[in-house]
């Protein structure tokens, strides 16, 4: 559509303009709530980036969003809109917890943690398999089925945690705390400057996954099939690509990535499974994927932005009672709106400006 625009304009200038628009609308709402947007921004930045500990927390949150962003992105590459990352992450947390509760007394850390990782990936993938299968074989739209699976996951986990996982004698709806050999090593063991932050090995794993995602999607035969199916299912089918298998495998990978997202908060920070531990990270993944245009670097940067918003927002809401953490759910929606649904709003204007310059040069 905007092929006349140079690449830097579509991949850098447009997303930034869209992001800016979303933040301006958000600033307007904060102003209407009787708070100063400038002051809010300075508190936010100071708390998220101003000191090593805050920055550690920012990266910790960003880690989860890299995983969920990757989960949504890889599905988008195949033209699938996976809204269910949140439920898949929730179920992934269950897989991880079951492994931990079963083996944390008997296995050493080097065996237990990879096993827990596999449990998380497996449960997340299994939860994504059903919508994927229904899309591939029955044509049930994956958007609606994954949303339904989020609701089902919420009820199911509620049932499982309350019925089976609460230790006897406890009231709090959460599992018991894992033994210490199930705790992911924190990065402040190597980088004491980070202070007391839960930033852990998952961050390194997230960076590896970003790299692997880039290689798989753009440098392998299967990645080519994936992108072909996403661009034009008809053409891909004509070229001999099995659309059904691409859809199912993509949803499995997407669910596995969402499941692994549970590692960061459960094995890295909380060390137990609790109700609603995802706190909407799967939905933030949608915003991350759309803003980052499904590119590894873009995903990293937008996950970082959301890390800043969540970490800074938590402190902001403590200081300003009119800006509760839910404000950032609103901002997240705005970012999806401007970067996803209206992504080309500024393209004609930008093209006009660039053309003008170009003509002057000639």
């Amino acid at each position, binding site marked *: 559509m905007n092929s006349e625009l140079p690449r830097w304009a579509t991949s850098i200038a447009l997303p930034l303009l869209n992001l800016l628009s979303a933040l301006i609308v958000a600033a307007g709402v904060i102003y209407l709530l009787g708070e100063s947007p400038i002051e809010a921004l300075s508190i936010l930045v100071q708390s998220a980036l101003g000191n090593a500990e805050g920055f550690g927390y920012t990266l910790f949150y960003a880690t989860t969003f890299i995983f969920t962003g990757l989960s949504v992105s890889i599905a988008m590459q195949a033209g699938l809109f996976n809204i269910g990352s949140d439920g898949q992450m929730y179920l992934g947390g269950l897989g991880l917890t079951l492994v931990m509760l079963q083996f944390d007394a008997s296995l050493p850390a080097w065996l237990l943690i990879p096993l827990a990782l596999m449990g998380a990936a497996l449960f997340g993938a299994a939860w994504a398999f059903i919508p994927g299968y229904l899309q591939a074989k029955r044509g049930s739209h994956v958007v*609606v*089925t994954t949303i339904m699976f989020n609701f089902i996951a919420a*009820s199911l986990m509620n049932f499982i945690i309350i019925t089976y996982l609460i230790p006897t004698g406890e009231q709090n709806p959460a599992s018991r705390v894992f033994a210490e050999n199930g705790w992911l090593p924190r990065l402040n063991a190597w980088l004491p400057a980070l202070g007391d932050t839960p930033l852990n090995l998952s961050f390194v794993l997230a960076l590896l996954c970003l790299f692997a995602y880039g290689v798989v999607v753009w440098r392998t035969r299967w990645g080519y099939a994936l992108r072909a199916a996403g661009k034009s299912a008809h053409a891909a089918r004509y070229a001999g690509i099995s659309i059904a298998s691409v859809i199912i495998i993509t949803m499995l990978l997407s669910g596995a990535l969402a499941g692994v997202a549970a590692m960061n908060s459960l094995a890295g920070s909380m060390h137990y499974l609790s109700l609603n531990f995802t706190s909407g990270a799967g939905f933030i993944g949608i915003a991350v994927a759309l803003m980052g245009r499904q590119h590894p670097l873009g995903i990293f940067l937008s996950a970082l932005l959301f890390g800043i918003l969540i970490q800074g927002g938590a402190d902001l809401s403590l200081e300003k009672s009119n800006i509760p953490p839910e404000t950032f759910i609103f901002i997240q929606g*705005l970012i999806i*709106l401007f970067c*996803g649904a209206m992504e080309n709003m500024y393209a004609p204007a930008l093209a006009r400006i660039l053309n003008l310059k170009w003509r002057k040069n000639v």
Partner: protein
Amino acid sequence: MFEDFHVSSILVATIRSAPVLLFAAFAGVFAERSGIIDLALEGKMLVAAFAAAACTYATQNPYLGVAAGMLVSCCIVLLQGYVAINQKGNQLVFGIAINIAMSGLTFVLAQYFFQLGGRSPDLGAARFPVLHFPFAELWSDIAPLNWLFGQLLGGHTILVYLAFALIPCMHWLLNHSRFGLRLRAVGENPHAADAAGIHVAQTRYLALLCGGLLCSLSGAYLAIVQSGFFLRDMSAGNGFLALTAMVFGNWRPLQTALGCLMFGFFAALQIQMEGVAFPVVGQIPGSLIQMLPFVVTVVVLAGVMAKSVGPKALGVPFVKSR
């Protein structure tokens, strides 16, 4: 076991919970028959519910509350039209964005105005009056008639009757009126409609606005009639259930209404099932019963989707050919 089950109260509950879905599903029919995917039903319901509850609380007049709900819902719809028609943006993404944004915004506003943790105060007496049949006292001695006219058919608010009156109206409007025929033409083949002199963008905007009005009634019903207050995320997936009812009904008003009644029935069943001891399985925990409507949705989609055929131009932005 079945002595705990009251078919009569399930039927009454079905009628009471159906309007939420009926209004929203018809809103979906308007949008989608004109060729625009409407995943934003949920968000529009939620923001209309909030506006209706807040305005009703402030003015103590439920009619003004409904009007406020309509106003905000139409604002969202204009934005939706701008994105889907003028910008030719991604309609699925728009729906998700609005749902997420409204979930956050309504909480923030509710907290700002009422300081009750994302809830509005109880609306108390400022609700719709319950309508009764005239001469209801005449047969109040005869139990079946009393139930039929007092609970099943009578004793509801005006919104319930409006929702059911809409069923034949929607059928006529879509299949027999000039506007309905144009709307369907635009949704099936906008290029042919354009060649025949129909203004595609204008028709789609009009369809969206009709849908926005209906969707706001659904939200107002949730807040003012069903619960009597606004609660965060109170739409609770009803927008998607309505959408599924529409797919189940093949995008046709009569069958869609049937789908809504089916979902309403399951919702009523769900309330009745709580606390009932079944043979073999015993008492089913509430959290599992809550899954019922969502599981039914998936099963319906998996079973029906293969056979249902939506409007041909659904989700495709119209670019006028030269």
